[in-house]
């Protein structure tokens, strides 16, 4: 079902993908747009030896997972806004539930579950094969400076 929704969103998806290519740090991390599905947004971070925490371990650094989730949360906030405006992260918490499997990509999934006039609140997960087996849990808040 998600695939059908994604196909319908193809125009939006490819536009989003092109927009993300222009974010230098996301490009450096190998982060790409994966899809939008009923309020949820997914980004994907390809495995790369450059993102590994400890040499030869193949395990992605927690810091890179944080960057993936910050990016995903930001996109979730932006896609739910009626008009485009700058946003800024106020805070973000990640709980690292178990180490990621080595040599594998990571998927970030985030939802903006509450907007106020000047704020947006997000939650999400980082996972690899199954969303039922998340690597990390995320909660965060953003300020919408233009909206206040």
């Amino acid at each position, binding site marked *: 079902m998600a695939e059908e929704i994604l196909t319908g969103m193809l125009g939006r998806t490819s536009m989003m993908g092109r927009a993300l290519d222009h*974010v*230098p*740090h*996301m*490009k*450096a*991390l190998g982060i790409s747009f994966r899809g939008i599905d009923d309020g949820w947004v997914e980004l994907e971070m390809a495995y790369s*030896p*450059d*993102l*590994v*925490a*400890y*040499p*030869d*371990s193949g395990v992605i*650094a*927690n*810091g*890179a997972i*944080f*960057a*993936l*989730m*910050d*990016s995903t949360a930001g996109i979730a906030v932006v896609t739910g806004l009626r008009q485009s405006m*700058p946003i*800024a*992260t*106020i*805070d*973000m*918490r*990640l*709980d*690292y539930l178990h*180490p990621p499997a080595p040599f594998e990509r990571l998927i970030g999934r985030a939802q903006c579950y509450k907007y106020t006039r000047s704020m947006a609140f997000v939650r999400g997960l980082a996972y690899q094969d199954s969303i039922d087996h998340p690597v990390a849990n995320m909660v965060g808040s953003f300020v919408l400076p233009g909206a206040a």
Partner: protein
Amino acid sequence: MTTLEWANELRRSGRGERIETLPYAVMLGVIADHDGSDLKLIMPYRESLIGSPGRLHGGAIAGLLELAALSTLVLALPEDEPLPEIKPVTVTVDFMREGGMRDTFAAATITRLGRRIANLRAVAWQYDYSRPIAAANLNIVLARAAT
């Protein structure tokens, strides 16, 4: 290389230079500052750190904060004991000011060092330590091998 092997290397060297050998630290361009006695990390400005026009990506700043905390913790663990595995479990980052297109610094302090849990706070700044751009609270599990 495991966390433990790396941490042992870092402790043997006794200084922060070993942080520069970690692939993710290399990707961010993070290096150790050799001035002063306390460990301080520097993330020199480079274009690949940009998240939105003119601003550093929050994830890059978070990565720098985590590296500062991990290396500070390793260097503070008792030298006469085997090093535990170091596993960050909860990491909260407050973003206070935007990170501009210039060098970023980070240093960490240990709030509490227990047997099983270490609590650290890391701060990142650009112009002045008293004007932080971000700060992180890290709760880290120390997993000791059964004896």
